[in-house]
């Protein structure tokens, strides 16, 4: 298998090239077929790799060529597939395939069909590169590559300037994180002389306590990268805006895969983090804050995709909370389950939008339950899963994180549970607003509502099943499970766990915690039902006044405006200031002033040439006197 491993990323790349070159000449069917099939083959190969690793327990490490080598710094182009990346491979290619399939139906009427598939394939390629890289730089290639694809796909409908802006924003915010990542890489090179995972992690594990100081810097810098990519506070605002892209993109990139790259990266670097408690704490706090913050915003959103977007941010916050409290497996588990249900929810939302002829505002929906049954059913499953209601997948992963959080700090736990309650509330709010009550859209829309074609519904169904049962691979022991995932990933987190120590909660405590979190989720569910399904209350139109708190939430805490005020405006001001004042008047003014000064001097000096012989001779005489004076006084020195 090892010698074919390169096929996994190369196949989507081939798809990109074929579809990219043939975007105008090939028929849509062929394009869709090629795009999906290649990812499917990749998925097959990934499965094979997965089972090989599962059976052998050894990671696969293959080196291809020297990519950059300067002096002592040698960066090979090499792949490393271990347990962690094997699962990521499955998620990427698996979910990726489903979304490709979905896109065939969803994008069928779009002019840029070929381009879209090319970009999607390219994205898969970069994402695979990200997880397969055997060193940070290859990871970084993928890291930035997915950023590029995200940029391209968000701005897919670039003729709309605000979409183009959203794409730009996403790219730039990612870049802020990337800089941190890059600096982290430099520091790693500086400390370890290499960036190869296989070399540096063992080295790091063997460091003494006093030598771990730089690790804190490294981990902080890497975390900056993760913050950017995974849309954490304070760099999260791009993700909701990224909903400008077509819905499959939101599902694949901005829910299932790319945004979890940050989690993957930290999980990958777990040894570094375990050795830097300060960073761990920070990661947890940032994650928690993000989870809460995004959830609060999601409460009042009216755009169906925006709700999901903030929910994604919030769930990502959960993952970081998990990482921060040392629940690497839990966090990763959540990545997995989140990929299923969030992709499902997005695709479902896409199906809704499709049905509503492009309408995304929930205030104009309602009562769709009976009209698009499959969509409704799958969405319901997804909602339950994300709300953390057993036995659906979200419950297990979320619970594992919360349990670790409890072991770490009660405050974290309380906030976490509160966030879970909010999650449950806004998710069901979305569900009720969309599918229950009366239809609030126009007649045309109502007339037009129909279930989506099979290419759309099949992925929904598959994902719904996965959302339901996906949690089974990580059933904790208190519930009588084996926690397969934990065992499988154990080699990856072995050393970290040794450093952090195992938190073993008592079974009773765990039961209480589970019960508590499920309880609040149910309370929120019921409250939402009363409010939106039973009473049919609808969020107010944009023109009307909102209560202050609602308004703050609806306007995303004015965070975009804040950034505008404290970053963008000052930079723009500096830009104009530098150009008009420093550059034009200052530096260039000095240069031109020198020239002008010389010319002015010339104007003055030439007046010396009066044309008057008497004056000339007078000056000459003065000169002679000066020279003679020199010979009088200068002589004494000689």
């Amino acid at each position: 298998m090892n010698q074919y491993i390169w096929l996994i990323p190369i196949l989507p790349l081939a798809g990109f090239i074929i579809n990219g070159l043939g975007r105008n000449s090939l028929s849509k069917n062929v394009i869709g077929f090629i795009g999906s099939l290649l990812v499917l083959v990749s998925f097959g190969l990934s499965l094979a790799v997965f089972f090989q690793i599962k059976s052998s327990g050894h990671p696969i490490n293959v080196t291809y060529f020297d990519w950059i080598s300067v002096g002592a710094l040698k960066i090979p182009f090499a792949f490393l597939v271990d347990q962690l990346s094997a699962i990521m491979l499955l998620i990427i290619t698996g979910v990726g395939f489903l979304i490709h399939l979905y896109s065939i139906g969803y994008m069928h009427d779009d002019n840029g069909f070929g381009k879209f598939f090319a970009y999607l394939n390219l994205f898969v390629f970069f994402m695979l590169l990200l997880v397969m890289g055997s060193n940070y730089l290859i990871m970084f290639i993928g890291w930035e590559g997915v950023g590029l694809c995200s940029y391209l796909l968000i701005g897919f409908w670039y003729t709309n300037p605000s979409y183009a802006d959203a794409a730009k924003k996403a790219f730039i915010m990612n870049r802020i994180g990337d800089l941190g990542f890059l600096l982290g890489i430099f520091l790693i090179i500086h400390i370890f002389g290499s960036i190869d995972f296989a070399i540096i992690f063992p080295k790091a594990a063997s460091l003494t306590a006093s030598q771990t100081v730089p690790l804190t810097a490294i981990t902080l810098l890497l975390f900056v990268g993760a913050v950017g990519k995974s849309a954490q506070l304070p760099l999260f605002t791009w993700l909701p805006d990224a909903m400008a892209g077509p819905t499959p993109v939101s599902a694949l990139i901005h829910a299932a895969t790319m945004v979890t790259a940050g989690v993957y990266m930290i999980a990958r670097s777990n040894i570094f983090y375990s050795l830097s408690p300060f960073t761990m704490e920070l990661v947890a706090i940032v994650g928690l804050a993000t989870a809460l913050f995004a959830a609060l915003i999601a409460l009042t959103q009216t755009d169906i995709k925006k709700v999901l977007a903030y929910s994604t941010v919030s769930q990502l916050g959960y993952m970081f909370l998990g990482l921060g409290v040392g629940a690497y497996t839990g966090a990763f588990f959540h990545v997995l389950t989140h990929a299923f249900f969030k992709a499902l929810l997005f695709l479902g939302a896409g199906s809704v939008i499709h049905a509503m002829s492009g309408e995304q505002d929930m205030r104009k929906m309602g009562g769709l339950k009976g009209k698009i049954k499959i969509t409704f059913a799958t969405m319901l499953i997804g909602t339950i899963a994300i709300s953390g209601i057993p036995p659906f997948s979200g419950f297990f992963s979320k619970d594992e994180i919360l349990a670790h959080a409890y072991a770490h700090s009660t405050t974290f736990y309380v906030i976490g549970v509160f966030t879970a309650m909010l999650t449950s509330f806004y998710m069901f709010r979305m569900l009720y607003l969309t599918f229950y009550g009366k239809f609030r859209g126009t007649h045309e829309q109502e007339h037009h509502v129909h279930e989506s074609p099979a290419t759309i519904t099949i992925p929904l169904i598959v994902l719904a099943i996965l959302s339901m049962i996906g949690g089974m691979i990580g059933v904790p022991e208190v519930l009588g499970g084996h926690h397969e995932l934990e065992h499988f990933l154990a080699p990856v987190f072995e050393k970290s766990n040794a450093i952090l120590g195992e938190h073993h909660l008592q079974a009773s405590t765990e039961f209480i915690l589970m019960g508590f979190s499920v309880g609040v989720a149910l309370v929120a569910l019921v409250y939402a039902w009363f409010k939106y399904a039973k009473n049919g209350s609808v969020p107010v139109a944009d023109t009307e006044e909102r209560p202050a708190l609602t308004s703050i939430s609806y306007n995303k805490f004015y965070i975009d405006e804040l950034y505008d005020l404290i970053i963008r405006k000052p930079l723009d001001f500096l830009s104009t200031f530098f150009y008009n004042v420093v550059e034009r008047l200052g530096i260039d003014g000095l240069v031109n002033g020198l020239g002008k000064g010389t010319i002015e001097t010339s104007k003055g000096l030439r007046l010396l040439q009066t044309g008057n012989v008497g004056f000339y001779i007078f000056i000459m005489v003065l000169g002679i006197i000066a020279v003679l004076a020199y010979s009088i006084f200068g002589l004494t020195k000689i």
Partner: protein
Amino acid sequence: MSTFYFIAFLSIFFSILVITAKNPVHSILYLILTFFTFTVHYILLNAQFLAVVNFIVYMGAILVLFLYTLMLINLNKESEPVKPFMVKIAGVFGGGILAVALASSLKLVATSNPVILKNPDLGLVKNLGKVLFNEFLLPFEVSSILLLSAMVGAVLLATKDPKTAS
């Protein structure tokens, strides 16, 4: 000895008159007197040949030429516009300081050896002729070019060109 100082005084006196006389013709006349004192100096230094040449060439030829030109262009009046007073002051100061500077840079206040006539025949025509036509033959010949050039030039410039307009 006192003769020297007397003549020196006269030289200075007349030369000052040369530059201060309002009428250019007077200036020339004073200049003739000044040159005459120089001739006396030469005689005192036993440079007889030079005394004679000075007398003939300068006073006889050059100054007459001046005078002649002056008359020719009818400038024998006090027609010269005077320079502004400040300029004159500046000029006098300039010249004065130059004199002082020259004198002090030459350390003239220090005592020095007297001028003693080592070779009484030095300034005689015979002796000078020998030097001139032996050692200084080449410069003598070459200075003919100078004179020739000056002659051609003077003629060229001073003649009225009938067809200048073209």
